[in-house]
């Protein structure tokens, strides 16, 4: 056990690369092809645009990773994003201090997430259904409070500039926010018991519960985090546009789920992680930017986007399968820990990412 654990620890970076190699490979291949065919892509101004364009879906997708790792899903993030943006715009118009308005908007996201979490963990309703219902209701709340119209507000403050349009050290503010959120996500999922518990719940909720994981609490927390991320994305969107729109979320839920899945996190839960999601979100932004630069027609863009998603997921699935078979191999060598390999994350040799 100890020798194996040491080897694993030593090659942590290598393993992480191996686990994500397909996504990274696709990313690199795309980059190489682009170098050849679309040199305009690598102009700094364009790269900054892409970074900016990936940020909002990226933030939502990091939150979504927490939920999907537990084997759940959150369809309500787009509505939550809109509600949070609308809340912020209206509170600022009512004369409230911008920081307080932002905090209340983020809390709106947390509350939406808590409701989802309670529905899933305590009322035991399927995540798809709970979040489908909240998706509809939350959109209704946004439309109700705005009478269906976008809410313009003054976004000239420093904080909005940072969250929306500004640059820090030459990097777009929203992209920095995305990177910070991603870093927090990666650290939480990798190094905190909370993160490890989420993997355990995704592997087998019952086994996790039997080995003492407070599954309900953890699930509620995962959805709350997802809601918080969606709320943050709403604040970012509104800061960028100086408008809180009740229908702003659009298809953010599907884009975020796509980013998570092409980042190698399984919809079945238990495997994957936040680093893959970062690449997933970047891949989506790069893809749409590239197609615009290449002048691909709007109809063809949709066809290509769908095909790329399928390919990326196929590759990601293969990588996951390999990871699982690796882990089985390791588990066979360790009969004592094989039984609850997924249940107790600390005893799991092939710790995912």
């Amino acid at each position, binding site marked *: 056990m100890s020798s194996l654990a040491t080897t694993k620890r030593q090659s942590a970076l290598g393993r992480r690369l191996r686990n994500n190699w397909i996504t990274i490979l696709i990313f690199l291949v795309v980059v190489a092809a682009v170098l050849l065919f679309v040199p305009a892509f690598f102009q700094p*101004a364009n790269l900054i645009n892409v970074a900016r364009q990936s940020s909002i879906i990226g933030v939502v997708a990091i939150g979504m990773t927490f939920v999907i790792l537990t084997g759940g899903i959150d369809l309500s993030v787009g509505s939550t994003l809109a509600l949070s943006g609308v809340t912020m715009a209206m509170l600022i118009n*009512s004369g409230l201090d911008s920081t307080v308005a932002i905090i209340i908007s983020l809390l709106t996201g947390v509350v939406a997430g808590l*409701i989802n979490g*309670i529905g899933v963990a305590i009322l035991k309703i399927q995540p798809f259904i709970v979040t489908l219902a909240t998706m509809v209701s939350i*959109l209704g709340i946004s439309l109700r409070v705005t*009478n269906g119209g976008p809410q313009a507000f003054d976004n000239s403050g420093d904080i909005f500039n940072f969250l929306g349009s500004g640059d820090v050290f030459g990097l777009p503010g929203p992209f920095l926010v995305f990177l910070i959120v991603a870093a927090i996500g990666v650290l939480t999922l990798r190094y905190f018991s909370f993160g490890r518990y989420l993997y355990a719940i995704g592997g087998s909720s019952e086994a996790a519960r039997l080995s003492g994981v407070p599954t309900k609490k953890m699930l509620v927390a995962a959805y709350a985090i997802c809601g918080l991320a969606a709320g943050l994305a709403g604040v970012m969107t509104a800061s960028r546009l100086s408008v809180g729109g009740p229908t702003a979320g659009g298809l953010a839920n599907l884009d975020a789920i796509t980013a998570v899945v092409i980042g190698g996190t399984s919809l079945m839960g238990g495997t994957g992680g936040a680093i893959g999601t970062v690449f997933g979100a970047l891949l989506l932004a790069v893809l749409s930017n590239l197609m615009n630069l290449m002048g691909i027609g709007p109809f063809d863009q949709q066809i290509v986007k769908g095909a790329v998603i399928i390919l990326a997921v196929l590759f990601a699935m293969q990588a996951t399968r390999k990871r699982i078979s690796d882990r089985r191999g390791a588990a066979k060598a360790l009969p004592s820990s094989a039984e609850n390999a997924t249940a107790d994350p600390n005893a799991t040799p092939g710790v995912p990412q």
Partner: protein
Amino acid sequence: MYITKKRLTSWSAAVVVAAALTLAAAGCSASSTGAKSTPLEVGDKPAPSLYCSSTCQSQLVLKAAPASVKCSIGVSWSATSFPYGATSSKQIPELAKKWFPGMQVTVTDGQNDASIQSGQVDQLVAQGIKVLIISSRDSDALKGAVDRALKAGVRVIAADRNVNTTVDTYIGSDNGEAGVVSGQNIAKVLGSSGKIVELAGSLGASPTIARGDGLRTGLKGSSVKIVTTQTADYDQAKGLSVMQDLLQKYQPGSINGVYTHNDQMAFGAIQALKEAGRDKEIKVFSIDGEEKALADIKNGSMEATVGYPIVTKESVIAAAKLCSGETVDKRIKLDSTLITKQNVAKYVGKSPQDE
């Protein structure tokens, strides 16, 4: 780490209560302050809007005394999740209350689903309405329900979007014509050097097709070129990011105009132009005429928009006419008004999307 069931229940109950309170608080504070969608300022006497030409006005002369109009009408809008639908569903009952105290109005929201809307129309008919104002989700899918209403003796007004059957009247402006007006203006402003990009609305939607075809008709005979068309789904955020990409592809000097299928996408495009420092080089031409677009025209960040007016006043007056047994022309068309810096002052505060 075990939590007893009892503790868990009380804990979750507390969270639910807190959640509900926070949401309610957010909702209340917001609704009390932010719902500043232009208060309706109309005269006590029924009158059509600024965008109803003299022909249109002559079609909407009510012979009966407003106080004598007594009947129940139903309003069936395709959806209220977009500003046009939301404003219309809100204004019609308000106008009716103000102008015709004897008119009872029931409003339904089709939630962007033709079958839901169809069921709602049946229900309105069953309730015994005399006049139906319908803006259909789909001109074919709502044909059945509207035919059933007509058969039951209900008079039908198609508002903004027509239904594919013989209704009493169809009131609205014309998406294709709005595109033509904008195209002719683009040809006039940009002249022979014109090279524009087109930000289209949602693919396959009928206004997108009409506004795109209209542009091409309007540009006929000029040498203005449409260098590319991309969709931004009528969405401001997408308008911004697609325009950023297009500015990257078309370096300074290669385009001098952008045509957007609605004002929301134009707002995104304007932001992209300003951030890239190319707002002086590229002119923005749009459709709709939101209040904010008028402000943008005034301050020079938008070159022109073409008004796509709401038809609430006209619909209510037509409903009153039908209630009183008067005849109404089969087609009442509102203007596609070109709004530029020269004439914008006339429309500020009375934008096509509110008035």
